């Protein structure tokens, strides 16, 4: 009996190891083709340039698949750039495409511009959850893309200003109130009392206050559980009111009205013009090694996305799915096997190269710490630009809880309404409460019209 119990106990102890082994096997065994000498020529469309990690990605791919020629086509990830991508797909010029932003991917799923990969995924036993953390990204129950690229949200901090304000160690967890207090402490004034350098800043996009709610609920910040919009939620109302206070009343955050009116981006105010000492951002790290355009004389530290209350699960602390890769080529094309081989490799091993452009790999098998070396070359080199310890703790931690979006009813309309009414509040045309009340009414109408 004792022997049986011992054996059972031993078997139980071995189970997690076996499971881990099985898990490890699941997420790598399908990636490489049996025959890596297959040949072909494919065009790969992506918003990043060769110098932003893509040349290295293709070289790495070719070290495994030497006979597949990959031609990189860089496009602008704005509405005109995406329009040109779509017309190029129709013209048959795009073989493998990374769509940035779920709404762009969704429009392509809906229009059938991506090849349906469902059968291939089933045939090869690809586990979406094990590989990329979610199987939510489907359209009409079909899989068109892999959600392999992500964004990590954090606060980038000028350490000179942080230390001068006597704010101590960088926080490992902090609340919005803590961040506003730090912003106030880091705000510098001219002799006449006007602001010289703002202590903090939101990101230049309008929607960042909705991520306060997103960090609490973990998904779909624009929508409530019942499918209506969430802009009347007290958390969102308070978040916009807080941003309004920081920018208009207390003047401790760089105003979003200037970001939008003057077409500025947060890396410019933080690194070039030095008009803010810290900033919420998903991509600041991309610009730090670019000393020609963004050279600075300070070290950048990193604090996590603030929470409403300490102890709260922070869904903005992980890596949120952002880019989706798939195939646009005709499945009967002779180069389709090459495109499939490239897509599988890019979505897994290759996706780490996104770090060179400030984005984060969302593949669960990505080696930890690869972002730092891809961005800066080595840890020693990185230390010249960033506080390495806080970088490792905060930027691109894919094991932390992640926010994601999979609700897309009237998404484009809701998003453009959100942008418009947010600016009415932050331009002081309406109070935040009035703007959000009007926004809620119009967004709910748009959602109801599409349902």
């Amino acid at each position: 009996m004792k022997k049986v119990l011992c054996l059972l106990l031993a078997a139980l102890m071995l189970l997690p190891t076996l499971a881990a082994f099985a898990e490890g096997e699941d997420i790598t065994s399908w990636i490489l083709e049996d025959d890596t000498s297959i040949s072909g020529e494919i065009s790969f469309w992506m918003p990043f340039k060769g110098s932003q990690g893509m040349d290295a990605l293709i070289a790495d791919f070719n070290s495994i698949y030497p006979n597949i020629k990959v031609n990189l086509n860089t496009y602008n990830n704005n509405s005109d750039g995406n329009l040109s991508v779509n017309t190029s797909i129709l013209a048959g010029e795009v073989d493998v495409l990374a769509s940035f932003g779920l709404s762009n991917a969704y429009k392509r799923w809906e229009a059938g511009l991506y090849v349906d990969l469902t059968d291939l995924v089933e045939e090869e036993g690809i586990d979406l959850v094990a590989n990329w953390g979610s199987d939510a990204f489907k359209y009409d129950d079909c899989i068109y893309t892999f959600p392999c690229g992500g964004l990590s949200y954090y606060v980038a901090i000028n350490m000179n200003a942080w230390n001068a304000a006597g704010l101590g160690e960088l926080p490992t967890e902090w609340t919005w109130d803590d961040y506003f207090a730090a912003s106030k402490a880091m705000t510098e004034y001219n002799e006449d009392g006007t602001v010289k350098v703002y202590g903090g800043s939101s990101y230049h996009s309008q929607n960042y206050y909705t991520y306060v709610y997103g960090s609490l609920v973990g998904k779909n910040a624009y929508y409530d559980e019942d499918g209506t919009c969430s802009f009347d939620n007290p958390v969102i109302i308070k978040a916009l009111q807080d941003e309004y206070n920081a920018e208009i009343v207390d003047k401790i955050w760089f105003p979003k009205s200037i970001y939008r009116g003057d077409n500025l981006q947060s890396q410019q105010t933080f690194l070039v013009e030095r008009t803010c000492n810290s900033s919420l951002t998903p991509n600041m790290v991309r610009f730090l090694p670019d000393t020609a355009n963004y050279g600075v004389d300070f070290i950048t530290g990193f604090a996590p996305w603030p929470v409403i209350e300490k102890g709260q699960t922070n869904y903005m602390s992980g890596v949120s799915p952002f880019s989706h890769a798939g195939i646009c080529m005709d499945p009967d094309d002779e180069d389709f096997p090459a495109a499939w081989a490239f897509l599988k490799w890019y979505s897994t091993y290759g996706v780490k190269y996104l770090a060179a452009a400030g984005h984060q790999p969302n593949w669960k098998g990505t080696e930890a710490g690869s972002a730092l070396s891809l961005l800066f070359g080595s840890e020693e080199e990185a230390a010249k630009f960033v506080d390495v310890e806080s970088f490792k703790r905060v930027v691109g931690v894919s094991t932390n809880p992640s926010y994601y979006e999979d609700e897309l009813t009237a998404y484009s309309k809701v998003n453009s309404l959100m942008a418009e009414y947010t600016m009415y509040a932050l331009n002081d045309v309406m109070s935040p409460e009035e703007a959000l009340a009007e926004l809620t009414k119009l967004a709910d109408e748009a959602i109801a019209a599409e349902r």
Partner: protein
Amino acid sequence: MARKYRNQNQIKENIAGYAFVMPALVTYVLLIAFPFFLTLILSFTEFNFLKVRSLAKLGKYISWIGLDNFRAILRDRRFMQSISNTFVYAFTTVPASIVLGLVIAYLLNGRVFCKKPLRLAFFIPYISSIVALGAVFKFLFREDGLVNRALMGLGWIAEPWKWTVEPSLSKIPIIFLVIWTSLGYVMIIYMAALQNVPRSLYEAATIDGASGFQQFTRITLPMVSPTTFYLVIVRLIAIFKIFGSVNVFTMGSSIASNTSIVQEIYSSAFSDYAHGYASAQSVVLLLIIILFTAINFGGQKKWVHY
């Protein structure tokens, strides 16, 4: 026999005539007539061109929805706002550019120092890239731009105005930009018209003791009224189709107070890929232009002197 030859020659002449007309005709049919009628048809449909896999099966991707697009337009707050904004642009920039253009043309038509360089200076904005000019104007009107600095320096405003994002101000930079860029064209057309006003009329008026102002209002204005009528029509149509100068200013601001009709059409077609709806919006724009052109033609009898 002679008649037969005449007929043959006539046929040959006709063929030659058609051959000469053909390139223009084909271009017109392909690039104007076909898109025009296609737009009319698509305005009654739901259509996303991205979904079209084969032109042979185009009908499969088009759903007939009757007047639904036009009903949706009536409920479309942003499109209605863009119509109102475009009317503001039309009713401010067209009179202003025509009046200023005429005054400048009249002044430059007389004896003026550096006449040619001045003409060139006024005409250059018209032939320059609207995107480049828009970027310059946006720079002038930004928060820390020259306009705010000048106004603050003069003590007229205490804090910088948000010209590009404040709804009550956001049309003003665009209006200035449009007037400035169209001035050169209006001026050149008026200069040509002024050259055709007989000198004898002015000489007779001078003998009769008419002042310069009287000569301008009683001779110049009536004599150039056909040109004014032409410019009103042409400038109104141009402003109803305004896109570039507005797009430079609205890019990123997200507010609806300064958008234009064509910008909304572009957004429906190429951001939302709702090509049926965008076609319906285009038809509405066409109707607006036809209406205003008809009103102008109707009213011209009262003030245009041929």
